[in-house]
């Protein structure tokens, strides 16, 4: 027989209190919250429109150019172009553009919010010891737990999808910004202090530039995690490739889910290649030869 845990205190009462409280918040502040995020929604929609409006070969060219700029290697630019072309080939172009829009905006917001937090953590042990457990919880708490509350607050659509994606994907930027700055050779930082640099000067002229490869790795990870949220985000109205996966699996069309999944994999590889080769180049230029 099950020897379950005895019921020591009334979890249900607590649960009901939480639910009632939350419903109250939804009723009282939902509209305000929704209004606050409206501009971001507009940005996201505009981005999606533009990406879908651009002729496909322009998009391919832009991505390939980006890859070349990041890596300075034709091989990588070509590989990116081929993979982007493949996304079109497997018939998921429009959905992929919507996904790219969501991902780029989510990553941007994550960076804008995460970078200062990471910097703050790197400067204070206290801040670090407070933030780390929060990040741990953010990364282990199943997304589904906060997915539906977000929908109840914002209604289904891109905003809750965006927020859930950011909550899930922001920890790497924060962690690696912190790690990167802490990892800057202390002798170099000491040297700048010895020359009388102020903390702000040290941060901007030394710590951030030298931590950049690590920070970029964090941004890359954040992008990857954002991508891995695509299917779940589409359950609350993010659309894009994720929605196509959902449709495919619900209809038992393995192939359709597979194609959309492949689209996601391709996107991931494209962004990873661009970010990584940029990071590698930077790291190299900081370490050895120019």
């Amino acid at each position, binding site marked *: 027989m099950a020897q379950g845990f005895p019921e020591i205190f009334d979890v*249900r009462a607590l*649960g*009901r209190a939480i*639910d009632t409280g939350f*419903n109250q918040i*939804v*009723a009282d502040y*939902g*509209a305000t919250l*929704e*209004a606050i995020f*409206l501009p971001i*929604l*507009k940005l996201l*929609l505009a981005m999606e429109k533009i990406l879908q409006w651009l002729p496909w070969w322009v998009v391919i060219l832009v991505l390939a150019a980006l890859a070349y700029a990041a890596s300075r290697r034709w091989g990588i630019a070509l590989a990116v172009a081929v993979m982007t072309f493949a996304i079109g080939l497997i018939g998921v172009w429009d959905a992929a553009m919507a996904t790219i829009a969501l991902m780029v905006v989510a990553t941007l917001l994550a960076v804008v919010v995460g970078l200062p937090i990471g910097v703050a953590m790197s400067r204070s042990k206290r801040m670090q010891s407070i933030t780390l457990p929060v990040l741990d919880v953010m990364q282990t708490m199943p997304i589904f737990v906060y*997915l*539906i509350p977000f*929908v*109840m*607050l*914002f*209604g*289904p*659509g*891109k*905003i809750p999808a965006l927020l859930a994606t950011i909550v899930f994907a922001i920890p790497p930027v924060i962690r690696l910004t912190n790690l990167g700055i802490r990892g800057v050779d202390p002798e170099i930082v000491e040297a700048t202090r010895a020359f009388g640099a102020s903390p702000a000067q040290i941060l901007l002229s030394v710590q951030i530039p030298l931590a950049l490869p690590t920070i970029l790795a964090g941004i890359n990870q954040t992008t990857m995690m954002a991508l891995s949220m695509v299917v779940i985000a*589409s*359950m*609350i*109205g*993010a*659309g894009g490739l994720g*929605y196509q996966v*959902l*449709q*495919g*699996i*619900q*209809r*038992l069309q393995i192939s359709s889910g597979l194609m959309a999944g492949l689209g996601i994999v391709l996107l991931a590889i494209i962004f990873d290649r661009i970010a990584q080769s940029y990071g590698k180049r930077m790291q190299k230029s900081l370490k050895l030869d120019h």
Partner: protein
Amino acid sequence: ADCGTAGPITIAEMTWLSAGTLAHVAQKIMSAGYGCDAQLIPGDTVPTATSMLSKDQPDVAPELWVSTAQSIWDEMQAKGNVYKASDIFASGGEEGWWVPDYVAAEHPEIKSIEDLKANWAVFADASNPEKGRLYGCPPGWGCEPITNNLFKALGLEETWELFPSGSGETLKASIAKAVSRKEPFIGYYWGPTDVIGKYHMVRMETPPFDAENYKCLVDINCADPKVSGWAKGEVAVAVVTSLKERAPDVATFLGKMQVPNNDISAVLAWGDDNGATTDEVATYFLKNYEAIWTQWVPADVADKVRASL
């Protein structure tokens, strides 16, 4: 009457309240009444149906919405390994487009789905104020082509946005959000469910059911959809054919398993209000609605079940 098989009988338990409750009811009756080794297998509609089709597992799905897994259902019928033992809801499932009661009261001019085209402005959303928003059916469900085709047939494409609800949960949360703020809402839903009762949803009137039109509506590739009312929802007690031989008495019981829509709605509302688990709701049902379930089983079985409560 006894179980007939020593092996386990598996019952699909789906995530929503009514399905979970009915699964527990069936399990309690089978194990207490027939002495079966009745096990619950949690899962969603599509995975469950898929598995019943390809693996004959689980044995019973007490609340299977046929339209949600239409193609799988069709294959099952063709293959013959799963049959419909009974319609679980006496009046069938009710599908359609629903609005909260306050919307219906405020806008008496919107009664039928055919009134929507003109009155889109009532349902405009802040993110896209140029169009009314209709919350569609979750992806892959049987209702998806019907909703999409109706949308076209009613000529709503100009003035409306058909908003994809990524999942059943999302749809439900959307209703909860709208109702808690008294915002306008219109979207697909189905009953009997706790949602309909709890949020006082009102079903939009539809033109009468037209078999010819409806046939096209359910087809994803329908070229020229025409308006029709929804067919009466087919919600089956789906049973694996082989169970008839393994546990004939149980199969007989499943053949009689059926609840009136009003009663089940009331049970669900009680469960929702009290935050009860599906197990508790099932017990509540067995205790308070004897008149219903005692008709499904012989008297000796009913006694045993009653004794176990």
